[in-house]
């Protein structure tokens, strides 16, 4: 029997396949404009790998912003619970999880292997992956390049809370001939400040763990660690935390790790 977690985020869709003992597959696809089509693409990819979703040998749990589009899922669970469960499985103990998603950012307290409380940013993209994406776009770079630029820069002030206004600020900085490195550093700093604010409001318990698509950035981890005053960890599988959590929920039972 196979247990698959599908995390359809606003930017990327992550998939983890487990059996009773271990992880047998994981992959990521861009979400594109239609989460329905992404769900179909995921099903095709699983079929090609020899794990058809409709063969009776597979249980699917969907999560993420596009979770309702996965019509072959047995169940949908919110990304908050899935990141909590998946993060715990990767780290091996209770912790606080920060997930900077494409649409929203969450701080999740994990106790006893499962989320006990959480805080999510308000209906606004400031402090989310979307904010970084828009600003990177404006600077003509991708996210990896944005972090590389930022590392070589001194942050310029980007004070607006609103993404649209912040973009205007970035445009003003470009117009004033400021260095791209300094603008990029300012952009990252703006997100870090928002995320730290969310963490302060919620409170941090135990080790802090960054999951989601941005967890591979050593620069971001460093900035968060410094501002929070505690080391923020990540894991090579961190971006799959939501999908892994969903797969673990699909598998059920008492086992909280892979």
């Amino acid at each position: 029997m196979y247990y698959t977690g599908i995390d359809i985020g606003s930017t990327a869709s992550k998939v983890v396949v487990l059996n009773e003992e271990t992880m047998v597959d994981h992959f990521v696809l861009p979400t594109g404009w239609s989460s329905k089509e992404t769900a179909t693409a995921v099903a095709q990819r699983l079929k090609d790998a020899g794990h058809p979703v409709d063969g009776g040998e597979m249980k699917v749990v969907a999560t993420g912003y596009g979770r309702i589009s996965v019509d072959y899922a047995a169940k949908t669970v919110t990304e908050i619970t899935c990141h909590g469960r998946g993060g715990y499985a990767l780290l091996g103990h209770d912790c606080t999880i920060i997930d900077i998603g494409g649409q929203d950012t969450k701080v999740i307290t994990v106790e006893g292997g499962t989320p006990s409380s959480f805080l999510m940013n308000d209906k606004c993209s400031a402090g989310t992956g979307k904010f970084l994406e828009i600003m990177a776009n404006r600077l003509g770079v991708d996210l990896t390049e944005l972090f590389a630029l930022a590392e070589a820069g001194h942050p310029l002030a980007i004070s607006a809370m609103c993404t649209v206004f912040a973009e205007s600020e970035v445009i003003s900085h470009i117009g004033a001939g400021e260095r791209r490195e300094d603008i990029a550093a300012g952009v990252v700093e703006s997100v870090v400040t928002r995320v730290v604010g969310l963490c302060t409001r919620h409170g941090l318990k135990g080790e802090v763990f960054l999951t989601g698509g941005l967890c591979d950035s050593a620069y971001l981890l460093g900035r968060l660690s410094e501002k929070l005053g505690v080391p923020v960890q990540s894991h090579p599988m961190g971006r799959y935390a939501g999908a892994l959590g969903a797969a673990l929920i699909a598998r059920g039972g008492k086992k909280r790790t892979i």
Partner: protein
Amino acid sequence: MAKLPQNFETYNEIRQKGFLRMKELKDQGARVVGIFCTFVPVELIYAAGAIPVGLCGTSEDPIPAAEANLPRNLCPLIKSSYGFALTDTCPYFYFSDLVVGETTCDGKKKMFELLNEIKETYVMQLPHVRTEEAVQFWKGEILRFKEKLEEKFGVTITEDDVRQAVRRKNHERDVMLGYLELGKLNPAPITGYELGTRVDASSFSFDLEERCAQVEKRTQEVRTDWEANYKGKSSDRPRILLTGCPYGGVRDKIVKAVEELGADVVAFDSCSGTREKLEKIDPEAPDIYEALARKYLNINCSVMSPNESRTQYVSDMIDEYQVDGVIEIILQACHTYNVESFSIKRCVTEKGLPYLNIETDYSQSDKGQINTRLAAFLETIEK
């Protein structure tokens, strides 16, 4: 999950049906007093032979119009109430001979000054403390309100009139409380959506005794149904206590949503919930006006300081209603409830229960995000 009864009517349907009845009553010469808040001692309105009616303020429709005169960053309930009056779209406001406001929060207090330019708005000065001096001051305000009603309607309100009104209103509080306490039954035989809607809309049934009879009938039906079909069974649906700001304007966005996601809202610590209905007034009190003053000052609204009695009440309700989780609703820019939510959260988490705070307004723009938060909150409650 408990189902809505076949003849269930939504708040808006009942509100609209009330328009015609109100017009008939007005044509027969009825006196009508429009109110916004549970701090207004409606006993005096009944004693004056008038009908109190709750004015509209739970729809986002008139908010853009209100924002022409009011700041955008203001409580949606205040903007909606004012907007209805400004656009003349609340028939109850139209039919009111007198509108009564009260200085509960700063936003309402200043809004009433503008409302007074549209229709005479009488404002009761509510103290925000429960000292003996405050009781005496509030008693003075109650007497001033009595004189206002006498002058407005050309009547004399006797002490006996007030005592009689106290008896009738006490009875109504008991009936509504008996109904809301159906939420104590486990598993829940009735949706929180129905519980809340019926109580909130009952003010559009203008005959107090008829209103009581209808609610008592439903209470009995639900009790019988519970005995026959629910008693002794178990349910995996989390039992939710709702606390915080008046929630009428977010009834669908929060109460309906959380029940559709698999929980039961069983208890309401809110203006229209049990909060105001627990404490009754002794109709034989030597000084009936002072008795009124004491009762109303004891309402656990966050405008009061200190207001520890609310935290204690929430704690008691958690036990009495066997609550699994608490959701607090904060309407945008409501400072007093927003600040007080710190104490409520602390009380709830110390009892080992999950707590979710949702700050929102009447718009639908955060519906998706709220649904995710509600769903994730319910997922933290494992039953």
